[in-house]
């Protein structure tokens, strides 16, 4: 027996296009490789997948419902549709729900122009929000020496939680409570500045898709995120394994 496990491949179609894939790949990975766009928010290559934002839902022929492309593995002969009137409608609906849930006021946000949520809304043609805004009163925690968390902008994607746990190994972040009361917390809901586990590496700030986590000293539209470290770090890790 050879030491190397054989690589198995599958062929499937995405929006009618035939594509080849390794059997351990997800629909999202294969689509991305082939230049086919699927909207995502919670997914970030290099982090574990959670399937939480539901923007990447696609239609798979024969499946019982819509499937999240970021976690669904390819299968032989799979027929995937990533664009349809129905999917477009759902995706805009989900984005609108996010905008209405908290206080996303782009014009005064540090990441205006560099925000994943904002650019998706533009790309998916979300012209207005037709659900009533909830305007919750949420705090801003600026107790950390270099960073700020603004809960008004958080979409609870848990990227910060995952990068801190899986890449930095600190597990400073977590999510507490249920439903719309959910909130990201540091340590046991201590102010970030008091956190004993935070190493101050700033990875959470860089992976955060919105203006919820930002660096201090940045004004409106001045903060853009640098995520180059992620593919590099994960590659190094995989090499070590």
């Amino acid at each position, binding site marked *: 027996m050879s030491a190397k496990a054989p690589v198995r491949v599958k062929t499937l179609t995405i929006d009618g296009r035939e594509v080849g894939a390794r059997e351990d790949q997800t629909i999202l990975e294969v689509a991305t490789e082939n230049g086919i766009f699927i909207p995502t928010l919670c997914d970030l290559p290099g982090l574990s997948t959670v399937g939480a934002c*539901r923007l990447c839902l696609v239609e798979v022929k024969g499946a019982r419902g819509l499937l999240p492309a970021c976690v669904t593995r390819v299968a032989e002969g799979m027929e995937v549709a990533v664009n349809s009137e129905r999917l477009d409608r759902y995706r805009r609906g*989900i984005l609108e729900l996010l905008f209405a849930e908290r206080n996303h006021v782009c014009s005064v946000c540090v990441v205006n122009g560099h925000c994943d949520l904002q650019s998706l809304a533009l790309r998916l043609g979300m012209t207005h929000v*037709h659900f009533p805004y*909830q305007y919750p009163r949420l705090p801003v925690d600026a107790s950390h020496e270099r960073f700020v968390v603004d809960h008004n902008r958080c979409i609870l994607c848990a990227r910060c939680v995952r990068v801190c746990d899986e890449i930095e190994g600190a597990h400073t972040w977590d999510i507490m409570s249920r*439903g*719309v009361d*959910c909130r990201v917390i540091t340590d046991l809901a201590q102010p970030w500045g008091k956190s004993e586990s935070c190493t101050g590496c700033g990875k959470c700030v860089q992976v955060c898709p919105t203006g919820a986590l930002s660096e201090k000293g940045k004004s409106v539209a001045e903060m853009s995120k640098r995520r180059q470290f992620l593919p590099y770090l994960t590659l190094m890790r995989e090499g070590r394994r």
Partner: protein
Amino acid sequence: MTIEELRKIAEAEREAQKKYQHHVCVCIAAGCLSSGGDLVRDAIQKEVVESGMKSEVLVKGVGCMGLCSAGPLVSVESDGKMYAGVTPEEAPDIVGSLDTGAGGPAECPTNVPFFERQKKIVLENSGKIDPERIEDYIAHDGYRALVGVIGEMSPRQVVDEVIKSGLRGRGGAGYPTGLKWSTVAKTGEQEKYVVCNADEGDPGAFMDRAVLESDPHRVLEGMAIAAYAVGAQKGYIYVRAEYPLAVSHLKTAIRQATRLGLLGNDICGSRFSFHIDIRLGAGAFVCGEETALIASIEGKRGTPRPRPPYPAESGLWDCPTLINNVETFANVAPIIRNGAAWFASIGTEKSKGTKVFALAGRVTNTGLIEVPMGITLREVVQEIGGGIPDGKRCKAVQTGGPSGGCIPERHMDLPVDYESLKGVGSMMGSGGMIVMDETSCMVDVAKYFMEFCMSESCGKCVPCRAGTQQMHSILQKITNGEASPADLALLEELCDLVRNTSLCGLGQGAPTPVLTTLANFRDEYDSHIEGRGCPAGVCQGANRNGKEAAQ
């Protein structure tokens, strides 16, 4: 433990019980306990001692007898009498009447449809045996199935028997139990787990609690048979911490079964070992969802994850895991004992056996009932439930809990089975059944369940977290009489979005109460919106605003 030794224990117990002329069973399950069942038991016991009848009368604390709303319940097995609403002061009357058969308090008739129309498999021992004594369970055929299986059947044969019985999951979705077992069995020889889902979070549901409190060994036996069939070595019972009596009875039962070698290492001298541990849930509804439950047992935050992979392939600590509901496991021993054909002869073509329901709402008799699948809703409501009190008319029956729907009166002749209930937009669910009459407002009912889903949403996925909040505020607006037809259109759009895009069954099912009430009682929604007020007179806001509009 051999089948012979088991028989000896059973015989000794039966002999010991036969020595008593009278068996007085007092329900001390949670329902009756809350109205003083334990005080009644103590008073009767004291009376028996004081009147020198200690060697004649056996006083037993037992589990649920079903008619929970009339507790505390006492039944005298020797003469078949039952007393409801018993107070400790009535103890002398009851004891005094034992020998003569006269002079006792007013009896609760047992020859009525409430008792006679039921069929008991899961609850066969409930209200009869002392749940804290393994000998009593063994005297009622307990553990015969397990010992027989280990001695005489191969795991494959056990799986086949469960497949042939047609048993389907009682936790909600009705997935074929045998199929699930065979999937876990097929994963080959490796570490595997059996998990019993006793989280029971549906509002008003207490079927599983009653089983665990009244007959805990039945669940352990079912789990052990399952473990033997799928090749698991370790089991967990995930039970809500709000069920202290169930937890205490389970702990006692596990200890007793382990002492007799029916759980633990090398069961019955075979090479099969199975250990069961209890894990307490902290009361989150979503932790009843299987992947959230698994995360919770692993010590993580209890949130669901996308499936596949299903737990049968990758569950607890990524090992193949069989997860079934309490009631599902409770059916296993009788199936093995009496044969798959016996079980399959009860019920309908696709729904076999019985189902336990917590009957509640606007019916005369509320409580816990077990009925054969295929019985009609009308029989349940009119005969077992004794009809609607105060001469009111039945309007709808809600089944399936917060993910279920309201079935209107015109479908009352529908058989109670998985497919029929699904066919009218509702579902079997875990066994909640709420009867509603003209005094129930269907919009208010929908709002109640939406509020439940909103506050129990785990918050992980966007459509459920934010969508239930939006839907709830629209329903609030409607019941306040402040909504417009545009709000109703928005509500329907949200139902479609949340149902089709949510991650787990909680979000996917959250719109169902709204959708079924909209489909069957749209005029009630319209009335609230068009300023004609709340037809049932429940929504004060709608009535007030309606009057203002009319003036």
